[in-house]
C-alpha cells in the first residue's frame, strides 16, 4: 500500500481495563502482526480500574493506523491516542550506577547537576544517579558518564502526556495528592 510518509517514531497512549492478561493481549497484537514495540510502560491511573500504557512504535502512517485500529479492536482497550503530532510532554526515567574514583567524584556531581540528575545512592567507589528527560537528554548523560565506567543502567521507557487543558481521561474523584512541584523527591521536570 502506498504511504504518505516514511516510518517514524510514534508515541501512543492507551487506556486499558486494569485486568490480568491485558498486557499480554497488547503485546500479542504486536508480535502477531510483526510490529515492533520500542518501549512500553504501564501504570495505574487515577481510576484504579484503568491502566495507562505508553507505547513507542516505529512505523509509517499505514502501520500506525493499523496499530491504533487493532488496539481499539481489543475488548479491554478503552481509548487509544496517538500523541505524536499533538503538543505533548514525554519523559523517561533512568537510574545509572557509575564508578566514582576520588579523582572523578567532583566531575560526576557537576555533570549530574547540569542534567538536574539526583544522587540516590553513594558508596566510596560509586554513585547512583536518577535522571529524567527525553531520550536525547538521557543518552547525552550516559555518554558523559561513560569514560568513568558505567556499572549498570536501567531505563523505564517513555511516558507521555498531552499539554494544556484538554481532558483526556474521565474525571475521577481521587484523594488530594501533593502537586508534583511540592514533592521534594521529584526533580528535573522543568527543562
Amino acid at each position, binding site marked *: *500500500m502506498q504511504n504518505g510518509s516514511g516510518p517514524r517514531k510514534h508515541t501512543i497512549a492507551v487506556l486499558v481495563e486494569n485486568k490480568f492478561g491485558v498486557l499480554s493481549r497488547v503485546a500479542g497484537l504486536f508480535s502477531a502482526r510483526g510490529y515492533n514495540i520500542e518501549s512500553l510502560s504501564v501504570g495505574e491511573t487515577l481510576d484504579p480500574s484503568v491502566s495507562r500504557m505508553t507505547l513507542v512504535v516505529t512505523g509509517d502512517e499505514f502501520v500506525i493506523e493499523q496499530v491504533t485500529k*487493532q488496539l481499539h479492536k481489543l475488548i479491554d482497550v478503552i481509548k487509544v491516542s496517538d500523541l505524536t503530532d499533538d503538543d505533548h510532554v514525554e519523559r523517561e526515567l533512568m537510574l545509572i550506577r557509575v564508578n566514582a574514583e576520588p579523582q572523578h567524584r567532583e566531575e560526576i556531581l557537576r555533570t549530574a547537576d547540569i542534567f538536574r540528575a539526583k544522587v540516590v545512592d553513594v558508596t566510596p567507589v560509586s554513585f547512583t544517579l536518577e535522571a529524567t528527560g527525553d531520550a536525547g537528554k538521557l543518552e547525552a548523560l550516559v555518554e558523559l558518564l561513560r569514560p568513568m565506567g558505567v556499572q549498570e543502567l536501567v531505563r523505564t521507557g517513555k511516558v507521555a502526556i498531552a499539554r494544556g487543558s484538554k481532558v483526556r481521561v474521565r474525571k475521577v474523584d481521587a484523594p488530594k495528592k501533593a502537586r508534583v512541584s511540592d514533592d521534594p523527591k521529584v526533580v528535573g521536570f522543568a527543562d
Partner: protein
Amino acid sequence: MKMPGARIVLECLKREGVDIIFGLPGGAVLPIYDALYDFQGLRHILVRQEAAAGHAAEGYARTSGKVGVCLVTSGPAATNLVTALQDAYMDSMPIVAFTGQVPTHLIGNDAFQEADNVGITRPCTKHNFLVKDGKDLGPTIREAFHIASTGRPGPVHVDLPKDVLVKEWELVWPEKVHLRSYNPTYDGHPGQVKRAAKLLVRAKKPVLYVGGGVISADASAELYELAELTQIPVTQTLMGLGSFPMAHPLSLDMLGMHGSYYANMAVHHSDVLIAVGARFDDRVTGRVDAFAPNAEIVHIDIDPSSISKNIKVDVPIVGDCKRVLAKLLEAVREELREEPSAAVREGRRAWAEQLAQWKRDFPFRYEWSDEVVKPQYVVQEISNVTGGEAFIVTGVGQHQMWAAQYYRFKHPRMWCTSGGLGTMGYGLPTAMGVQAANPGKLVINIDGDGSFAMNSQELATCFTEGLPVKTVIINNSGHGMVRQWQRIIYKERYCAIDLPGIPDWVKLAEAYGCVGLRVTKPSELVPAIEKMISTPAPVVLDVCVDKDECVFPMVPAGVLGRCQPSTYNRVRLRPAPPSGLAWLVIWPGTRRSLSASSRSSLAGF
C-alpha cells in the same frame, strides 16, 4: 439461592436462549456433565473430536443466526478446539466455546490435562475469559454472548476451572451488558453515506463487491434492493455466496483466484467499487497495487480495522451493513431525483453490454466426458436436483471451489465453508451443526476425499444423534488442489498427494451405521443423488471423478502483472484480455504454459 457453578453455567446458557450444545466430556468439565444429567431444555450433541464441536457450533451459528455453543474439557481438548476457534475468528462466526480448566489452586502447576487455555486462545478469539470466581460466572457468560454476537461477530472462549464449577455460588445475572471499552459502531457516518451515494449514481462502471458481512448482518434484502434500484452488478466473495441470488441477471458470481472471468474483469475495469462486508482478502485481490486500479473504492464494514488494511479506500463507512445499506438506499433515491447525465447513462449502457459479453463468452466451463464423471458435473447436478434450496457445506480444496462455482445459490445463510482459514475436515462436523439447527431440512456436505478423511469419525455422531447429513465425496483419489499446484507451478513434480482408493467410503459409511453409495459413471449420478436425498439416514455418496481435472479459471491475481497475459492463454482464451489487465488467466486447456520465472513468482502464493 446458591447452586454449583456448573448449574449456573447451564442456567445462564438457557437464559441466553441456547438450545443445543456440541460437546465432549472430560475430567475438568465433569461437574457440568453431572448438572446436565437432569437439566431440562438443553440438547447436548456428543461429537467424537473436539474440533468437530467447534465447527458444528459454527454451522449452527451461520445457518440459525444465533450464537453457537460448544463445551469441551481442559488441556488436549482445548488445544484440539483451537483450529475451530481460529476458523470461526477468520470467518467472523459467533460462537461461545467453554473449556474446562484444572482447579484454580493447580493452575500453573503442570497439573494433569492442564494447558494455558486462555494463553493459547488469546490470538484466535475475539475475546476470552478465565473465570476465577463463581460470582463472575453469570456476568462473564453474558458478556461472552454479547461480544460474540455484536459488532463483527467472532468466537469467545470461556475457561472454567473445576473448583469454580463445583463450589456453590449465588447466580448473578445482569439484565444489561455494558462494556465501556466495547461499543461497536452500527450507523454509518451520514456524510460518508452521502458521498458514496453521489459516487454510485455518477459511476459509469460500478460494481458491488459483497462478502460474508452482508450475511452476518442479514442485509441481503437491502443489497437486492440497492442492486435493483441502481442496476449495479454484484459479485460475491466465497463467504458472501448466497447474499445475492445467482440467477439474477446482475449477478457476476464469485470473484477472486477461482472466481469467474467476468467478475474479475468487471472489478478490474470498474470505476467505482462498492465493497460491502468484505475484507479485500489476498485470494480476492492478488497483488494489491494492481487491484481495481481505476476504481474509487467505497468500503462498508463494521470492523474499522478491516478498512484500508490491504487496499487504500476512498470512502470508508464504518457500520452495520444492513443499516448502512438502508441509509445508502435513501441517499441514492435522493440523488436519483435528478436524472443522470447523458454521459453517465451512455457509460452505464456500454458497461452493461460489456459485462453481458464477458458473461456470454467466458462462462465457467469444463470438458464433458461420457466415460468419467467430471467433478463440476456433480455440483451442477446437486444444484439442479435441489433447485438451490439445500443447505450446502464444503470441506477445503478443489471440490470447495467447484461447489462455489457451479452451485446456483439462492438464499443467504444456506452456505457454510471455511473461507479464511481453509480448514480441511470442516465439512462433516459443520454440516452436523447445520442439521441440528435445521431439523428436517436437506443438508448436503460436498467434500473431497482428502478433506472428508480428516473428520470422517463424525459419521458416528451423525448416526447416533439422528443427523441425516448427506455427504457427497468428490473422490479424485488424492489431494487435488495440491496436485493442481504441483502440476501448474511445480513442473508436475507430484509429491505426497496420492490417496489411492482407501478407505472404501461405502464400507466406512456402513461401518458407522450410515448408508453408502457409489457412482463411477456420469449416467449413474442423478439417480444416485435422488436416492441419497430420499434416504432418511445419513448418507455418504462416493463419486469417483476425473483426477486430472483442475479448477479453472485460476487467477493468481496480479503476481504476473509484469508478464504479458496473452503469452499464457493463447490456447483457449480468445480474444485475449485487453492489455493492462494484471491477471494471468489460466483457462481449461492451458497446460504447459508457465515459464520458469513466472512459476517461481507464483510459488510465493
